[in-house]
């Protein structure tokens, strides 16, 4: 196997990213002018249609973790790994069944915190806030790290500079445009991501001799073809449940559910899930071709960009290769970082600021406070990304925590009675045992253990000492 690493020059990398940054910030400022009040800034006026709605949901879910980690899954876990990553789309498909219920129960809801506060009381709400903040920050940090890695792999831009640049661009346009800017840029970014993945995938198909590829993998990477490969099989359930937990609890998705028109929201989420499903398979397939095409991968976290740029440069596209990969991956990162920045800032303002600390924000001071919070979150993410943790650890350590929220969300939405204490005990125990499993058994068991333990407690909570759930509590959420 020979070394086949392609990269663009550092100056080309800088110019590409700065140009993209200027475009996104300019669009953010332009779209942000529509946000006349707090609801416009946080929920885009609750009037997002089908095309923008499905595009923003899909683009948000095509994160750096999809474009960077799906190839890692395929390279390390084979075909099962690719499928395992794709099962995260089931979270979007099932969330489509939640949306109507969410809008009925919380007609004036703003964040996912509203639901947890009214359904599980102050303690449950605090528990949710701790978990969602840990998760959101680890997601944001993992993407900032991926951004730095990407610019280093493709253009030789030092990690710290690349990571800082991507964060600054996303903070700026979220700051100016709020959810309007996030949804608008997501739409364009989702188109670029889809086109990029189709182009790269097609080039791999053209370059690859499938029978030779099979022989190569059978000789050099036999475990990737093994049906009963333990880590890969467990990754399927683990990733699926992790995806359920991520989507069901996080304010990124709840804010979109509140922002879309009620009639189209379920269709938009369902469509986004369908559109998202093949993306990790395409991204992973590229990585599986690395060995047969003789591409050496120096760092497992750089699998995606290294293989993609090598394949495009093999096809004679020269420096265009690196620029195309850079644009596609930059879009995939930006589309998630902006969404998370907006949703996390909303949570901090609404739930932590207004809810926990009783800070009163009028319309005049809202934008200024939102700006301070967005910048604050950006700085915190920068500080946490500075040590350059391995992506997969930063991501999966939060898996059991979000996994333990799956059943409390289902019960809170669809059941009439529940024993809150048992449900909350299940969240705590599921999180603790899941984190233990992460270290003791392997990352591929953590979300499964967290979700499983929480499920048992929630089901018990339906039969042992349940208290009546009053829908009116949730309907009056604005009070």
């Amino acid at each position: 196997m020979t070394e086949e690493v392609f990269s663009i020059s550092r100056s080309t990398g800088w110019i590409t990213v700065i140009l993209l940054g200027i475009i996104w910030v300019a669009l953010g400022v332009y779209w942000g002018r529509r946000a006349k009040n707090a609801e416009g800034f946080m929920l885009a006026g609750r009037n997002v249609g089908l095309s923008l709605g499905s595009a923003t949901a899909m683009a948000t879910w095509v994160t750096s973790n999809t474009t960077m980690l799906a190839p890692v899954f395929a390279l390390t876990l084979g075909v099962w790994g690719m499928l395992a990553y794709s099962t995260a789309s089931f979270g979007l498909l099932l969330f489509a069944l939640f949306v109507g219920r969410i809008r009925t129960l919380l007609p004036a809801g703003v964040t996912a915190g509203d639901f947890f506060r009214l359904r599980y009381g102050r303690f449950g709400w605090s528990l949710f806030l701790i978990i969602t903040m840990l998760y959101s920050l680890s997601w944001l940090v993992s993407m900032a790290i991926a951004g730095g890695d990407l610019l280093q792999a493709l253009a030789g831009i030092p990690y710290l500079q690349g990571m800082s640049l991507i964060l600054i661009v996303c903070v700026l346009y979220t700051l100016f445009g709020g959810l309007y800017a996030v949804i608008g840029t997501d739409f364009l970014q989702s188109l670029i991501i889809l086109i990029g993945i189709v182009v790269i995938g097609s080039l791999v198909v053209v370059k690859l001799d499938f029978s030779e590829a099979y022989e190569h993998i059978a000789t050099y990477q036999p475990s990737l073809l093994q049906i009963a490969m333990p880590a890969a099989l467990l990754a399927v359930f683990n990733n699926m449940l992790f995806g359920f937990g991520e989507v069901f609890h996080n304010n990124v998705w709840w804010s979109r559910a509140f922002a879309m028109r009620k009639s189209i929201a379920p269709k938009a989420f369902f469509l986004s899930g369908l559109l998202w499903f093949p993306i990790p398979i395409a991204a992973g397939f590229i990585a599986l071709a690395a060995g047969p095409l003789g591409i050496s991968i120096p760092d497992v976290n750089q699998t995606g960009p290294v293989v993609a740029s090598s394949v495009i440069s093999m096809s004679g596209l020269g420096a265009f290769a690196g620029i195309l990969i850079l644009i596609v991956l930059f879009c995939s990162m930006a589309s998630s970082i902006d969404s998370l920045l907006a949703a996390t800032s909303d949570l901090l303002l609404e739930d932590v600021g207004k809810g926990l600390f009783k800070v009163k924000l009028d319309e005049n001071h809202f934008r200024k406070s939102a700006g301070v919070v967005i910048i604050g979150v950006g700085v915190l993410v920068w500080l946490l990304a500075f040590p350059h943790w391995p992506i997969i650890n930063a991501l999966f350590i939060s898996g059991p925590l979000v996994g333990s929220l799956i059943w409390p969300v289902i019960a809170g939405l669809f059941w009439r009675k529940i024993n809150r204490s048992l449900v909350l005990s299940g969240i705590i125990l599921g999180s603790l045992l899941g984190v233990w499993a992460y270290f003791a058994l392997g990352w591929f068991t953590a979300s499964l253990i967290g979700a499983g333990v929480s499920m048992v407690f929630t089901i018990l909570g339906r039969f042992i000492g349940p208290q009546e759930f009053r829908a009116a509590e949730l309907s009056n959420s604005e009070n």
Partner: protein
Amino acid sequence: MFRLRVARHFHRNRTRPIRFSRPHLSIAAFVLLCFGQCWGTDEIDFTNRESLEASPSDNGTITLQWSNPEKLNVRIEQAPESEFTSSLIRYEGKGKSTVLSGLAEGSHFFRIGESDGTSWSSPLEAKVEFFPREQLWLLLSLGGVVVLMTAGAIIVGYFSTRKGDES
């Protein structure tokens, strides 16, 4: 031809002990020391040998790292035994690391050297130990049950509340 002559020489003189004078021995020791030091500094070796040999991989993926400040063309070979009687070339290039995935369960030996194959590092033994099969089936069953019950609870909940939500 040279080998043949040497063999004949040793064959003829095999009963006679070879004698070296003290100056000869000193010179030989000096030369050996010099060459030994040269080989010691130039020999390419894996830099993460200790961690790879200490902890087995649970998914058949390992990252081999080595120092290569002079950007030499290096080669890495893999074999099922430490003698490398039958080996596969796993890397050739001027880099400093490579990821190998899909390794089968068991022990794998790796060695690194310049691509001309004249000198090799000592073998590195990397072990692959998959998750225990008994626990695997238990966790897979648990996974199946949790996923099916989760999807079932959502679908039942959706249909039981849909009419009310629409009205």
